[in-house]
């Protein structure tokens, strides 16, 4: 079902945990749907110095969060913003079709965390299209 890469990131997730006094925190998803993803950022000079995550969700959700944190660490906020769920899927060497939304969660979580940082800095949050593909989202 899952690629070796997904299983690797699921079995040995990178950057699990929280960052005390994080510069930005993004939480997306919904426990009702069986997935919540939380990403913490440490930012210096518009560069993501560190990222950590906590995820309640399936194997794909855990692997997507792990991969997402790897992809954004060391990137500028602008570059990190532009990391799409497709990039996460590619880096994971594919996800089953029913699991694509798990990677969307990762993209959304990055956006949320960056916007949280911006708001804390007194900047306007960047507008995001609502991308979440959840069928079970609360009406």
């Amino acid at each position, binding site marked *: 079902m*899952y690629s070796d890469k997904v*299983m690797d990131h*699921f*079995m040995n*997730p990178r950057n*699990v945990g*929280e960052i005390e006094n994080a510069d930005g925190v993004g*939480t997306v998803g919904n*426990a*009702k*749907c*069986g*997935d*919540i*993803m*939380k990403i913490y950022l440490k930012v210096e000079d518009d560069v993501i110095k560190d990222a950590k*995550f*906590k*995820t*309640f*969700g*399936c*194997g794909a*959700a*855990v692997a997507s969060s792990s991969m997402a944190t790897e992809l954004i660490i060391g990137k500028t906020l602008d570059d990190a913003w532009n990391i799409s769920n497709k990039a996460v899927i590619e880096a994971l060497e594919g996800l089953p079709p*029913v699991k694509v939304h798990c990677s969307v969660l990762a993209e959304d979580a990055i956006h949320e965390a960056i916007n949280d940082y911006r708001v804390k800095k007194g900047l306007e949050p960047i507008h995001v299209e609502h991308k979440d593909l*959840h*069928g*079970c989202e609360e009406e």
Partner: protein
Amino acid sequence: MKRLVYMDHAATTPTSTEVLNEMLPYFTEKFGNPSSVYSIGRETKSAIEKAREQVAKVLNADTNEIFFTGGGSEADNWALKGVAMANAGKGKHIITTSIEHHAILHVCEYLEKNGYKVTYLPVDKDGLISIDELKNAVTDETILVSVMFANNEIGTIQNIAEIGKLCREKKVYFHTDAVQAVGNVPIDVKEMNIDLLSLSAHKFYGPKGVGALYIRKGVKIQQLIHGGGQEKSRRAGTENVPGIIGLGKAIEIACLDIQGHAERLIKLRNKLIEGLIEKIPHTRLNGHFEKRLPGNVNVCFEFIEGESLLLLLDEMGICASSGSACSSGSLDPSHVLLAIGLSHEIAHGSLRLSLGEATTDEDIDYILDVLPKIVERLRNMSPLYEEYLKKGGAVNV
């Protein structure tokens, strides 16, 4: 070699060697078409009739009340659609429960689209329906009550004899999906007043792709599969001879000492349940504590999600399931867990461990060693757990 602990007997069981050996000659040597006149056809015909007797005996039915099908789902579809269509003249109301297998629920939805009315009885927190509610639901239009014998997810066993008695009094047909019960719980269709009963061989160490429907003599039912004259012109198609032979042998073996078999499993099951509740905080047992399949354990671990749990268990060689095997891959939590009153959140963290012939006491010890660590690991990455701790939840670690 990696240790393999198969704890998903409710999803399917291996075909036992004894059963397979019985089947083998019917593939290559005794392969005649049972409908033929010549001897190699007649010999498969009588082997099928022997299997029919084996099934009838175990259920206390008559041989000519047993019809072989391509599995449990076909039997369920046949029972419901067949009775609904043949008795539409009397009425178009069917009563079932909210915790049936999809092979019943999706047929009910289909019937609803085709002009039938279906009442889905709720269940209590243990998964039991109320006889009073059933009684109140029956109207002049009711033609069929379908209540599963034992639930595939939470293992709860209904009060089938009581339901049967009520249905007989009310003169409505009573079907029970006994796919999980056969081979685990004694069944007597006469004493329990069952009119139709579905079963599937691969749940009791027989082969996949073969099942049976018991139809009490006199029950009005239409065919599901039309065609040739097989199964007394009620279920067309060249008979799955090896499969039917296997089903017969498997049901015979499973019911030889059904009591002893159950006692052994119940002991292991209870040890597992008690161990999990003791070792893992925020764990809840789903289903009735006593009216429960001998091999069924179903628990929810708060703050974690089922699929991740299954993957980590698989890494440790433990095969288990979360909700019914049929719906894994879908995102909705199990309808059964929601029906017994669990929140979506908690239902997502469910785990079913189903024990069987191969399960040993060492397997239980192994699970009780491995599972708490896995749950802890997942909780440590769960934002829900983090939140819970921050809110000052008294976690009794």
